[in-house]
């Protein structure tokens, strides 16, 4: 037998992990850790539009963001009305679109989980809205909701349901409804895919076992399907909520937060503050708040749905 002597080959072999993991870690550190640090740093700064200098202002950005502005002083304990209303908008937007698309997605996923011929086709048909550019989807819905020439008013009129046009995007409440509809349209496919994958993880035999045990359909759902679906629900909700909290695309192209501030959400507020007002400090502060809120939501979702059926 021959023992080959090839020092380079051996050396490269020994360096396998550093060579394959190192670049990615450096890269990720550069594009995530560094910006995050910079975000924190910026949140303590204020850009003076006159001098164009960044000034250190401590926690002022946070105080002003969250607490009331009256009297030129941050009055602790009284919340900034904009913060309150935009937070409310965000909660309404995220709450409704996530829960509607979750229920809808669960329903469709349960239908698709049936042993249907052509299931692949349905899945293809169902998935497409999610992979279109959000901008295009947002504008498409803006076009659908357009008050004079939009398809929705057109169709409703043709069906004789309404006589005059409904100004969907220029009425505060209706604009929020329109936004939620668009959002549900875009993101339901994601829920469907994730839940469908979860449903396929349910061991078929457990349904049989439950049926033999005499369980009704409802009881089978709660005792067999749901425990196995929980991890998927967790993932679907987490990613979905994070997506919605940060989703600017739809809001920005459909309503720009308007009319008035009726559809302004955290994401659009952040963008407006940081980019349109060119006030990066306040934008960064809002970004920090957003990060914190996101992590809090993720943590609580894990609390609720975290337990997998195989865990002790």
């Amino acid at each position: 037998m021959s023992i080959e002597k090839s020092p380079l080959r051996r050396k490269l072999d020994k360096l396998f992990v550093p060579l394959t993991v190192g670049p990615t870690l450096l890269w990720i550190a550069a594009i995530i850790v560094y910006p995050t640090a910079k975000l924190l740093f910026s949140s303590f700064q204020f850009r003076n539009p006159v001098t164009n200098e960044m000034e250190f202002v401590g926690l002022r950005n946070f105080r002003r963001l969250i607490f009331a502005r009256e009297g030129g002083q941050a009055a602790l304990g009284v919340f900034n009305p904009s913060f309150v209303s935009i937070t409310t908008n965000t909660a309404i937007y995220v709450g409704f679109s996530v829960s509607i698309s979750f229920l809808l997605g669960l329903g469709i996923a349960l239908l698709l989980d049936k042993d249907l011929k052509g299931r692949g086709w349905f899945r293809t048909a169902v998935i497409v809205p999610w992979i279109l550019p959000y901008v295009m989807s947002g504008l498409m819905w803006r076009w659908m909701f357009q008050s004079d020439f939009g398809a929705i008013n057109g169709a409703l009129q043709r069906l004789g349901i309404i006589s005059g046009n409904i100004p969907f995007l220029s009425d505060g409440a209706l604009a929020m409804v329109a936004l939620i509809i668009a959002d549900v349209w875009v993101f339901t496919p994601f829920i469907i895919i994730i839940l469908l994958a979860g449903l396929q993880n349910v061991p078929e035999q457990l349904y049989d076992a439950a049926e033999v045990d005499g369980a009704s359909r409802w009881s089978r759902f709660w005792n067999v399907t749901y425990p196995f679906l929980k991890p998927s629900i967790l993932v679907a909700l987490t990613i979905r909520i994070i997506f919605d909290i940060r989703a600017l695309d739809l809001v920005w192209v459909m309503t720009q937060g308007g009319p008035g501030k009726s559809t302004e959400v955290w994401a659009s507020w952040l963008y407006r503050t940081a980019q349109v007002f060119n006030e990066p400090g306040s934008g960064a502060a809002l970004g920090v708040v957003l990060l914190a809120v996101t992590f809090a939501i993720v943590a609580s979702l894990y609390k609720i749905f975290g337990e997998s059926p195989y865990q002790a």
Partner: protein
Amino acid sequence: MAHVELTDLVKQFDDVTAVDGISLNIPDESFTVLVGPSGCGKTTTLRLIAGLERATDGEIRIGENVVNDARAYERDIAMVFQNYALYPHKTVRDNMRFGLEQHDTAEDIITERVQETAELLQIEELLDRRPSELSGGQQQRVALGRAIVRDPAVFLMDEPLSNLDAKLRVQMRAELNKLHEELSTTTVYVTHDQVEAMTLADQIAVMDNGQIQQVGEPTHVYSNPRNMFVAGFLGSPSMNFLEGTLEESSAGKFELDLGGATHNVPDEFTDALEPYLGDRVTLGIRPENIALNQDGVPANVHPAAVEVVEPQGEKTVLELELDTGQSIKAAVDPDTTVEMGDAVNLRFDRDSLQYFDPATGESLTYDSKVERQATV
């Protein structure tokens, strides 16, 4: 408790006929075992009885009722699945309670029954664990417990021991045996393990290709296979088949010309084999019914060369080549001292000989043998 009767049962999946018209009577309190090679329709038959599949044709009767259209949860059966199918997120106790709860059993009765069953199976200390915290054998017992606790009309068990290692398997087999003695619930049991089949069954049904090949008491079927399939399927190493032409010797005796060697047919088969004189006939002989006979009586002794010696502890299996070139296996005493290349003479135990029609595989001597046994 109830008897189960299947009549001309058919189950068709798209292009596969999984169950192809089987009729089987499963008496009340009996322990019936279905055996057969993989894919022969055992599981499907069980699922039809359970109501997890709907029959394409035929009739299923449990007790007095035709249950073809009843769903699983409407039939009073309990099933043990091959992989247990325990609910992984429920404790052992809740796994066992579930079926009772679904049947609206009163709380105190549930508690009592679960407790009793757990004691019977010696899993009381496991009641608060989850399935993932149990060993395979313990899971197995829980799966059994979940079925037993229900006290159903019929037990269905689908290869319930197939996942266990050899040692545990032997243990569990014994426990199942005891259990049936105690409860006497009608049981249909699927396995592809012959030892299991032989040891557990009151009645064994050998299936192939969606059809039942033979039904009967295990030892009866083992020694009197109706056809080559059954003969070859039961027993390990499996039965040797030697094909030859049936001729009448000058002495008026029948003999099988194996192409280079001659096998003398014992007289008692002459009547049964008479119609096949001149035809091709297959002789069947189990390895354990072959003895080495180094000095040898001339009649029915076949010279052979030892090719492989496989000592297996409690027996030694020999692979031999007959002079005719045919391969044959023999199971002999472990202290037999033979070596590769040895020339030996084989003696076939005449009581254990079987004759088949090589074209159809049907036994030519089944009826005469059974008759003879009955008269003995």
